[in-house]
């Protein structure tokens, strides 16, 4: 019986989500309570199922395609994380979304997102997993599209980018199923020893890292940050997508394929991770919008996770997974603080913010905790997970370590800028009447900030109970909890953080404001040109894709016009001409008609005699 409780984790949010669509707009209270209580139910269910091992199989279309679910260490952790964010962000959304349109749709999508993520985490069959994965893509579109006026365009962009990578993933699934002879994930274990398996891995990897938001599949996230409703950003790109993407990446690199330090794909993953870390954080530096700045960090941080898992050494993998949950925590916390500012002040444009610390002390405190956590300051959770990723990276090559540390420097620098610009400095007169956000928006932020602190100070708790059991035997007796083993690496980290502070103070001194504290990097001789191009979206792969599509569509249009000309122009002209010509031949003159008959007769005789 208990195995059927697995289905409930999908069915409860699915049904309440569907019901939500049919509730009329007027019943706001009912919709809000439905959202909160069904996400609460999911949370309780996830707590109840935590650390259990269950399987549930339903024979479906054919033997290879069965509806099979498997709950084990990893997936129960993921269910819990999803339900945790689901509940608290639902609580937050209820207040945040008041007075906005499309409530039914947004809440419905929100609940369906929980349902489909749970489906992905529980599926033990690649096809079933892909079904939920694709269903999630539709929600992504729907949740972005209910935002502001530009949102539809952004939603389309997200849909196209993720859709294309999901297509790669679909090919990967077909290939993997073909190679391993089964679609059951728990029965797969392919060695990465030839081109075809590597190709299958890379195709699946594209799906996974694109869901995680890594470069070059990231470009919709910053646009969504400004266009989509904020709880979406906090829930999906900051939390759920990282969970989904990294979960699947871990599954493919640990379970479905045997990735080792000798695998080429390991180098590929680390490279993607390193590039994502550095490029995204460089873009984050120059942002002048609270949410947009955060969104680039959402991209940058996923680089650490990919780098960590890509190292294929225990420290790196544990670090990557730990970073995944940490990032989900502090990034959604940061987005929630951005939402709180947006709700109370009415804007997230950093030019118009400043000095909010006194007006919104709780928000500021939560921001502070989550910001130092993301910057990797001891004793917050980000510090410990980054140290583990560093440990894994240095084992594979100093260049990865160097880039990761450099990324940390810029991360710290950009959060110094953000905090300074938004909460410190002068309060602008328009914002003089700003008040602290209401209670049910503060609760989620406080809880998340507290968890950030707990996961840092008591890092044994998540590491020993949530993450290390996932690796099980592969851990080979290591225990990564407690203070980092390598003291010199900790020293380097502290040194980098001090440098970031020094850099900030230097920037403030020459420019005179927190917002422009990083302008010396922005307008540095070489960087200025690169940044100019980046701001014109020159580096957005989506735009390149659009350019290519544009060329193709122009060629197609040309062909279409030519065909049109042939069918509507030339052939009509020809037919009319011929028709009029034939008409003119029919003069009504008997002798001409007789002559035709005579000619025809002669031809026929000719044919009869000759053939």
């Amino acid at each position, binding site marked *: 019986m208990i195995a059927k409780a697995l289905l409930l984790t999908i069915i409860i949010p699915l049904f309440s989500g569907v019901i939500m669509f049919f509730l009329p707009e007027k019943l706001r209270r009912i919709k809000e309570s439905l959202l909160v209580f069904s996400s609460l139910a999911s949370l309780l269910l996830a707590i109840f199922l935590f650390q259990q091992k269950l399987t549930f199989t339903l024979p479906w279309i054919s033997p290879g395609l069965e509806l099979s679910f498997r709950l084990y260490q990893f997936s129960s952790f993921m269910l819990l994380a999803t339900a945790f964010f689901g509940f608290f962000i639902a609580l937050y959304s209820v207040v945040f979304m008041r007075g906005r349109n499309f409530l039914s749709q947004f809440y419905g999508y929100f609940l369906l997102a929980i349902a489909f993520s749970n489906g992905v985490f529980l599926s033990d069959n690649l096809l079933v997993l892909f079904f939920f994965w694709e269903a999630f893509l539709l929600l992504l579109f729907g949740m972005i599209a209910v935002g502001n006026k530009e949102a539809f365009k952004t939603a389309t962009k997200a849909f196209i980018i993720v859709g294309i990578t999901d297509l790669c993933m679909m090919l990967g699934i077909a290939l993997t199923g073909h190679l391993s002879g089964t679609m059951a994930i728990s029965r797969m274990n392919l060695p990465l020893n030839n081109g075809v398996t590597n190709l299958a891995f890379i195709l699946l990897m594209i799906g996974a890292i694109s869901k995680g938001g890594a470069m070059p599949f990231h470009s919709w996230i910053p646009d969504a940050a400004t266009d989509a409703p904020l709880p979406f950003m906090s829930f999906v790109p900051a939390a759920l997508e990282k969970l989904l993407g990294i979960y699947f990446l871990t599954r493919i690199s640990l379970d479905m394929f045997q990735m080792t330090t000798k695998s080429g794909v390991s180098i590929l993953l680390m490279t993607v991770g390193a590039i994502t870390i550095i490029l995204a954080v460089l873009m984050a530096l120059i942002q002048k919008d609270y949410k947009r700045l955060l969104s680039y960090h959402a991209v940058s941080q996923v680089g650490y996770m990919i780098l960590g898992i890509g190292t294929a050494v225990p420290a790196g993998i544990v670090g990557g997974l730990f970073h995944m949950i940490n990032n989900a925590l502090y990034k959604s916390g940061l987005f929630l603080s951005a939402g709180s500012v947006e709700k109370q002040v009415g804007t997230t444009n950093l030019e118009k913010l400043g000095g909010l610390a006194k007006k919104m002390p709780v928000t500021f405190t939560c921001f502070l905790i989550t910001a130092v956590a993301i910057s990797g300051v001891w004793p917050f959770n980000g510090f410990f997970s980054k140290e583990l990723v560093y440990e894994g990276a240095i084992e594979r090559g100093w260049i990865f370590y160097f880039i990761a540390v450099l990324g940390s420097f810029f991360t710290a620098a950009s959060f110094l800028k953000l905090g300074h610009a938004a909460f410190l400095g002068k309060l602008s007169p328009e914002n003089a009447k700003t008040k602290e956000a209401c209670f049910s928006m503060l609760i989620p932020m406080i809880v998340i900030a507290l968890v950030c602190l707990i996961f840092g100070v008591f890092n044994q708790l998540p590491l020993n109970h949530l993450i290390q059991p996932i690796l099980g035997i592969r851990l080979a007796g290591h225990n990564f909890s407690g203070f980092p083993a390598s003291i010199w690496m900790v020293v380097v980290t502290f040194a980098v953080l001090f440098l970031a502070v020094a850099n900030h103070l230097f920037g403030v001194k020459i420019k005179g404001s927190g917002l422009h504290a990083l302008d010396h990097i922005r307008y540095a001789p070489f960087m200025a040109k690169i940044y100019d191009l980046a701001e014109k979206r020159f580096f957005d792969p989506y735009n390149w894709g659009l350019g290519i599509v544009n060329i193709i569509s122009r060629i197609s249009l040309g062909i279409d016009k030519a065909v049109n000309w042939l069918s509507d122009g030339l052939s009509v002209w020809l037919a009319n001409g011929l028709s009029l010509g034939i008409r003119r031949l*029919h003069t009504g003159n*008997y002798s001409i*008609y007789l002559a035709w008959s005579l000619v025809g007769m002669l031809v*026929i005789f000719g044919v009869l005699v000759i053939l």
Partner: protein
Amino acid sequence: MSALLILVPFFSVLILNLPLKGIRKLAFGGAICLSLLQMAAVFIPDAAFWKINPHAFGSIFSFELSADSLSKVILFCIGLVSFSALFATRQTLKDSAGRFNFINIILIAVAGMNGVALAQDIFSLYIYLEITAISSFILIAFNRDILGLEGAFKYILLSGVATVLMLAGIALFMLIAGSTSFAVIHAVLLNHNKDFLISLGIGLFIVALFIKSGLMPFHGWLPDAYTAAPAAASVLLAGVVTKIAGVYVLIRILVSVISFSPAIKSILLLVGALSAILAAIAALTQSDFKRMLSYSSISQVGYIILGVGSGSVLGIAGAALHIFNHAAFKSLLFLNSAAVECQLGSRDIEEMGGLAKQMPVTSLTSIIGSLSCAGIPPLAGFWSKLVIVIALWMAGFRAYAVIAVLGSILTLTYFLILQRKVFFGKPNAEFKDIKEAGFSLTFPALILAALIIGAGIFTPFILNRFILSFNSIFGG
């Protein structure tokens, strides 16, 4: 007993013209009954009914009659189209004395055509053809207006040429075979297939039949004759007369007398393709309703000839099916043109527009007829065209199969032009008080439309029976 099909119409004409009081009023009802009886008679399965004593009229000109499934199809078509034409006389010919004469001539033409369909020797075939032709001349010139007389004269002129050629051909066959019976000539021709005289005889016969069918380039008479004829005569001419006098006789001669050779096939395919395409192109820019339908007729006959030209049983079955379908949709369309002409007093499609609202039955039935003619599924015309195209493809004439499909596209094009100009588009203010045509034009139109739809839907059933029974005409 099948001689009754010839004799009954003849004697009916005689009886109707007896100086008895009130007998003239029976003409319409009697003729309708005869056409219905003829359609019913086709379904008589009794073999004895269809067999005739071959030497009833002497030994040389044997007047043999016989009917196979091809003849039965033709007989049914004759019944169907004469039924429609008879109804059309009610509204198009106002003068009751004139109408009585017209009905008499229709009956004579029906007798002639039935004779053509049943004849089993070339000389009696020739006589029946002449009966049909002469009654047709009269029907075309019936109104004695200048255009009608001119059309009839053109028909007489080219038909006269055809008659001469045919008689010469018959003379040559008699010279060689010593008999006019199909079976005898066929047996003789099988032994002398490369004789020049035989080639000449075959050539004369084929050219004569091409003229009678109105195939390009022998079609000069056809558009004028069809256009100038009274509406009821057009229905009869386009629906059956030329199909029987030309196409049916051609099939009959080819199957029972001459038999297919590569040269004959290539002539048929060439002429068929030429007619199917050029006539369709010519139809595109016609502004006269009936003239457009006339060119359409040439094009459709071209189609039928393409099917015959494939030389296979399937092709001939397709051709026969298309003769039947053509009889249905072309009589329907000529009835529609009669309805429009009656109500508007004009045939110029450029002046018309938006008649769909004022003449809903005419509009609807003409759409069905047009679509069937263009070969749109599931209407009857689709299936016969499909069978013809398949037959061409299977016989290896793939280029001709493609041409046949192209011809269908052209057909659709000119019918869409016709529909748009007549029944849709902007209404002409001049014709705003127009009403639907009377019962006697809409009733047969509705029956024909229903037949087209029904035959289309039940074609797989009809086709099975057709193709199965068509094997037998080669066996004889």
